[in-house]
Each structure stands twice: as C-alpha cells, then as structure tokens.
C-alpha cells in the first residue's frame, strides 16, 4: 500500500510534466489507465496470477524516474556483448527508457518507420494512433496500466503493406545510471499486410544499480505477414523486470517468438497472443537459465478466438542454487474456434534441492473439433545418460554440462536466424560453464 501511495502521489504531482514530455496520443490514454492501475493496486501474492511473484520488495526501493527526459551519458556503440557475428543487423538503442539516437547508418525500405515512439507518434499520428494502447487496454494487468500511465517513450517499428525487411532489426535496451532507476518502456510493432521482419530485443544492465523495468509491447501482425521476435535478458541479480507483451495476429499470419533469460534478478514475462484471423500460426518458446536467488515467471495466454489456427509453446527452465521459476500457460479455445491445433509444453531441470518450480499448464476448451495437448515435466539429469557419458571418458562435470546443453538446445534450435542461433548456443554454453557471457573486444565486461 505504501508503494502505491508513493506512486499515486508521484503521478499526481508530475502529471503536467508527463504531459509536457510526451506525444499527445500517449497522454490521452494516461488518466484512464492510471485510474485502473490505482484501483487495482500493485499485484500481490494474494492474487492467483501473481501467487508466486512477490513484487513487494522490488517496489519498496526508492527508484528515480526520468520524468524530465534528461539525457544519460552513454556509449551504446560499445556494447559488443550484443554483437552477433556474421549477422548484420540494424541497431537501435534505448537507454533506460530514453530513445538514444545512434549515429550508425540505418537502411530501411521506404515507408518503414523505425525509432523513437514519442517522435514517431508526433510525426505520424495518423498511421500509429490506431494501434497505440489498443491491445493493452483490454488487459486488466495493473503493471501494464501503470506503464500506460507513466509511459513517455519507447520504440516503434511500422512496416507498410507488402514490404519485406531482410536485415534483422536489433533493439538494445541498456540500463545505466548511478542511482536506482525505474524505467517505463513501450514497444509498438505494426506489420502491414504481406510483410516480413525480424526483431531482436536485448536487455542489458551496464551498471550495478538497482533497476525496475516495466515494459509493454504491443505487436500487430497483419494479414499474411510474418514476424520473428526474439527477446534476450542479460542483466543482473538486482534488476526486476515486468514485461507485458500483447500480440494480435490477422489471417494467414505467422509469428515466432523466443524469450531467453540468461542472467536476471526477478523477471515476469506476461504474453497474451490473440488470433483474430483464420489460418494463422504462432510458435512461442522460452529458455530460462537461473541460479543463485533468481526468479523468472513466464505466463502465456494463447487465445484461439477464431477457427483454423495453430499454436505451439515450448518453455524450458534450468534451475540451480536457490532459484525459483514459474510456468503459467493457458490455451483458450473459444466456442466455434474449430480445427484449432494447440500444443503446450514445459520442462524443468532442477540441479539442487533448494530450487522451487511451479508449473500450471492450463487448457480451456469450448470447441470440439480441436487437437490440444500439453505436457509438463520436472526432473533431474538422467543418471543413466550421465553414466553412459562418463563411461566414454567424459568427466562428470563435462557430462552434466553436455546434457544441460542438449536440454536447452531444443529451444535454441527454434531460432530461425542461423547466426543468432549459433550465438545463443555459445552464450548458453558459457553460462553453463559459469563464465560470464562476454565477447571479444567488449568494453563493458570486466
């Protein structure tokens, strides 16, 4: 309650500052969202959805918010950690929640809008306004409503009809600052009819301050469009990330997403995917590697609102030390959504007796001509496999590493960009070996 009062006061006191520093389209949604957020309050462990995710401690910290949009001295170009060898990407940067204009040359097809959400909303209101805050509005998640209340900037990718972007777009989100910071970020991705694009979003913590990141992504995949969306988190134990991602797929569209957590503190990923047109397909996957006191909650809702769509979920966790993880998956097949095919799978590998794993794979089905299934397994490394590998001369440590790697590769194999897949494998391997996932020439790694 105390934290809620603090932020309520903050919102009231700085309402005019928020108005001054953001596009009018953003500001128009603010009050209604704030009312919803304040009425619901911060999510607590007493609610079913947040039963195992305690935000209380993370919210008790006195964070700074960059409401006046002051520039943060940063050198995003130095972040070689995100460089994907042999994959040429178009790079964009966000520092905390401030879009950072890069001097790197960007080549995009005509009509594509890519960059600061605030600037683009002001310049191309006619194109973007119909999309901003459309998916998020229908959700009752208090953190998403709080994001709308405080949001001032973010990133936008708008691809007009029939445009194909060959080169993947990479957005690097950096946390940097001398003080503890709360960042409120917003992503808006709109793919028109018959388009295709790949977007890679990486979260990095540069300094060791505490961060609270509240992110909302709204993704529209148009008719017959195709989007690959990768998110990777590599922060540290003192970060808290709450990310709400909403996806709406039109007829014949294809969507692929993978969320990887290699290093994090307390992370919550809520994904809500709605099929609005027939014959669309979605592949959702996630790989979470946890150690020490880290925690990740992945909550996925796939809403089959129309017939003839396919969805496939695969979420894997490797838990070490005292880490905790949650998988909450829900497939909703609405009445008349016939010929739906939905698969859902989660698996966890526990390495110590102190880990905690909660899995809730749920199916809610109101149509009969469907093929739906889910599977969930929690266990340890197979002793027989370990024995077999040791027989072949591998050390126990190496054998365990290989088996963990094999477990994880089922998820990384789903990455469609070859160089990114190699890169993820390398990072996962390093992570299992206990090495910092640093790269050659990286100036920020110690």
């Amino acid at each position, binding site marked *: 309650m105390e934290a809620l009062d603090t932020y309520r006061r903050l919102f009231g006191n700085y309402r005019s500052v928020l108005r001054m520093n953001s596009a009018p389209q953003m500001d128009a949604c603010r009050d209604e969202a704030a009312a919803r957020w304040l009425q619901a309050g911060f999510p607590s462990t007493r609610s079913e959805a947040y039963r195992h995710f305690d935000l209380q401690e993370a919210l008790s910290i006195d964070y700074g918010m960059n409401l006046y949009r002051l520039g943060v001295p940063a050198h995003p170009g130095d972040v070689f950690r995100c460089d994907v060898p042999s994959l040429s990407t178009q790079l964009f940067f966000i520092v905390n929640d401030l879009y950072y204009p890069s001097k790197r040359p960007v080549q995009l097809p005509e009509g594509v809008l890519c960059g600061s959400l605030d600037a683009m909303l002001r310049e191309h209101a006619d194109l973007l306004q119909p999309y901003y805050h459309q998916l998020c509005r229908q959700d009752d998640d208090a953190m998403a409503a709080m994001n709308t209340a405080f949001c001032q900037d973010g990133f936008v990718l708008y691809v007009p009809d029939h445009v194909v972007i060959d080169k993947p777009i990479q957005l690097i989100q950096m946390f940097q600052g001398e003080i503890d910071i709360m960042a409120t970020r917003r992503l808006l991705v709109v793919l028109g009819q018959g388009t295709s694009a790949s977007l890679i979003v990486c979260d990095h913590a540069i300094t060791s301050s505490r961060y609270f990141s509240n992110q909302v992504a709204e993704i529209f995949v148009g008719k017959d469009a195709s989007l690959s969306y990768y998110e990777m988190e590599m922060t540290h134990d003192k970060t808290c990330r709450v990310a709400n991602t909403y996806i709406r797929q039109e007829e014949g569209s294809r969507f692929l997403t993978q969320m990887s957590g290699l290093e994090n503190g307390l992370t919550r990923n809520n994904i809500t995917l709605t099929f609005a047109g027939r014959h669309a397909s979605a592949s959702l996957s996630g790989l979470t590697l946890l150690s020490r006191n880290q925690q990740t909650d992945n909550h996925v809702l796939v809403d089959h609102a129309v017939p003839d769509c396919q969805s496939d979920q695969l979420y894997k966790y490797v838990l070490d030390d005292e880490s905790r993880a949650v998988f909450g998956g829900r497939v909703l097949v609405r009445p008349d959504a016939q010929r739906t095919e939905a698969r859902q799978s989660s698996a966890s590998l526990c390495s110590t007796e102190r880990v905690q794993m*909660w899995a809730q794979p749920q199916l809610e089905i109101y149509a009969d001509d469907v093929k739906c299934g889910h599977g969930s397994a929690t266990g340890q490394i197979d002793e027989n496999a370990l024995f077999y590998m040791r027989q072949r001369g591998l050390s126990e440590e190496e054998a365990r590493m290989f088996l963990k790697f094999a477990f994880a590769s089922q998820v990384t194999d789903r990455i469609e960009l070859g160089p990114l897949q190699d890169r993820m494998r390398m990072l996962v391997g390093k992570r299992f070996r206990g090495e910092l996932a640093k790269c050659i020439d990286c100036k920020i790694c110690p």
Partner: protein
Amino acid sequence: MKQSSEKHIIEEVTAGEYKYGFVSDIETEVIPKGLNEEVIRLISAKKQEPGWLLDFRLKAFRYWQTLTMPRWAHLDIPEIDFQDIVYYAAPRKEHPRQAGELDPDLVKTFDRLGIPLQEREMLAGGGTAVDAVMDSVSVKTTQQEALSKLGIIFCSMSEAVREHPDLVKQYLGSVVPYRDNFFAALNCAVFSDGSFVYIPKGVRCPMELSTYFRINALNTGQFERTLIVADDDSYVSYLEGCTAPIRDNSQLHAAIVEIVVHDRAEVKYSTVQNWYPGDKNGRGGIYNFVTKRCLCKGVASKISWTQVETGSAITWKYPSCVLAGDRSVGEFYSVAVTNNHQQADTGTKMIHLGSDSRSTIVSKGISAGKSQNSYRGLVRVAPGAARVRNHSQCDSLLLGDRCGAHTFPYMDINNETAVVEHEATTSKINEEQLFYCNQRGISTEEAVGLIVNGYAKEVLNKLPMEFAVEAQKLLQVSLEGSIG
C-alpha cells in the same frame, strides 16, 4: 463421415435419461428450514450426541459464519440461500429397526436402486456389506455381525459416536479440520450421518464395504460424513454410491470423507456418483460440493481413489492424498461425464510430504451437450520429501460443439530429486478410429460407444467387479444406449 449423421449419433448417444429419479413415499421427519445455533443444537439433540461433539459443531458453525462462498472454481454457481435448506430429514419408524425390521417402503426404495437390505438377500447376492443412508440418517447397516468377528467396525456415524466415542474423537476432523474450507465448515456444523469404518491391525477385510446415499426428502441438504481408519497392515475396499429423485429445485450435498491409513495399510475407495443431474434445460439437480481427503500417515501406506462421476448439476470435488509416510502411495483414477447443462470442476491433490512417496493421476473427462468439465489438480512436493515420483495424465473427450473441457493442473515442486510429469490431451472422437470400426462392420453408433468405453476403461478397470458393472451401466445412462 457426414456431419449430419455424426451430429445425429452424438445427439442420440448423449440423450440419456435419469433412471433413479423416483420419489419414495416414506413418512419423513423434518425440522424447519434455516441454519442457526438452535438448529445445530436440535440436530445434536436428535442424535443424542455427547457434549464434545456439540462443541465441535458449534465451533465449526461460528467459523463458517466468517467465511464467504468460494468462487475460484470454473463453475457458475447460483446464489445459495443457506437459510432455505432443511438440515435434517429422517425416515420415520425408527423403532422397528431395533428389532431388525425395516419399513417395507424403505426396503422397496433400496431394492429399486439395486441395493438389497435384507441379510438373506445380501448373503445370496455376494459379499458386500452395505450402510444405507437416506437423507440425514443411516437406515440399515448389513453384515455387521460377520465383520465384528474380525474386529472390524462398520456402522453408521451416529452409532460410532455412541459405541466407539474414543476412536471417533481421536480421528474426527484430524484429516479435514473444520477450518479447511467453506463447505467443510458447513458440514462439520450440521453433518447428519454417514459411515464409520475401523479395520484393526493386520486384518484384511474379507468383503467390500459399501455406503449407499439417497436423498429423498424435498428441499433437504445432505451432509454426511464418512470416516475410515485402516490400522497397521490392514486392507479395505470401500464403495460409495449415490442417487436422488428428479426435482425442479436444486439440492445441496456437502459431504466430508476422511481416511487415515497407518503403516503398510491400504484403502481402496471407489465412488459411483449419480446424483440427479438436472433436466435437459439445466433445471434442478444436486450441487455436489464434497471434501474428500486421505492421510497416508504410515510408512508404505496406500490409498487409491477411483471415481465415476456422472451425476450432479454442479460437482466441486477434489479427493486428495496427503502422503506423509515414507514410501506411501497415492492413486487417483477418475471418469467424469457431463451432459446437458452439468458443470464439473473436479480433480485431486497429491501432497507429497514423505520421501520416496509416489502418486499416479489418471483423469478422463467426457463432455457433451452444453456442459463444462474441468480437471483441477495439484501436485506438491515438500522440501523434505526426497525422490518423489508423480505421473499425471488428463484426457478430455468432447462430444458436441457447445461443451467445454478444461485442464488446470498445478505443480509445486520444492525438491530437486522429484520427478513430476503431467500430460493432457483434448480432442473429439477420432474419425479414423470410427472409420476403422465401420470398416470392420461395426455401426457408427456402436463404434462411438466402443470408443468412449475404451477411453474410460483405464479407470473402470480399477473399480471392484460389482461396481464396474454398475459404472458401465451408468455410462450408458449418461451417454445413452450404444455404449458397452
């Protein structure tokens, strides 16, 4: 297959009628509607209960008053007016019972239900001991003499309170305390009758024990309570069946079943639940809100729940296993059939506290008409429970495009040595299987029956022989004649 013919067959298959909906004209003693401390005192007085039991009831009632009706289940439960229910109804002519005689109407009622109450017929019929409960009281318990020779106690709860107060006092509320949940608290306050079973050390109960519950009186709630204690190295198989007449008003059934299993003992608990499910438009039917739990207290103790749920307008029921003993075993096999406007939210909880404990969950849901059928289950592994093994399998079969099948499993794993697996599928009847059957000369109607039966077989096989036959018949009633 053509869509129209498929639809026609499914309609036929799902258009069964409730066979046990008759009302017996038995003179019944009822107390006025309503719930307050006076009513509880009256029930207690009618049953001539000791003071400690009245205190237990009153404590539960006061606690219940602080609670609100749970709404978390995937059920649309209409508002229940707890003051509009009769909490005690008993068939009259209790006295002749002392002399071993029964009201002929009562005997007729149970005969119609296929439950012979006369010892002569019982012996001819085979080795099952029956406790028959109508509305709020147990009307007859058979085979008591044969059982008592082995030291087995099988009697009504009221009798147990009188004859074996120490045992009842020791175990009553030890598995389901009155603070457990809303309906458990209500049951603790107003429970009327039920069965009590005690199997002494090392005894293997030579016959199936069975309780048959019948709601007969109008506007009555049934709140029975069953307590089973299996002492070290003992074994018992216990069966439970239930029916109610067809009435337009819904009736409430909120029971508690408590089971305590000691070292190396085994209890097999089978239920065929066939309360009146309401009519085709969703009018009437029993609200079946039941708390069932077994405490596997002893080392290597075992509980096996098998349930066939075909009746009730609304079912809210999660037979649970608290696997406290090392190497204890919990099993849950369930077939839940919903049709018309029925709603079911049922499943189990496996709470693993002991090391090397194992559990198996097999749940088969069949939804038809406009019904909603949910599986809700919890598998929890406590931090101190090493090498726990669980496997859960939940399948749903949809017959019709207006029904729903839902799966809500929860897995809380707090120990790395656990191996927990869950799998679930939802589909309609496989057309290839139908086609295959057709090819072999089996009509589509028969094939639907075969497939449904085969689908439920894994669970039906776990039922004792006599019950398996009844359960198959029940599936026929619920999903019409082509099955079996």
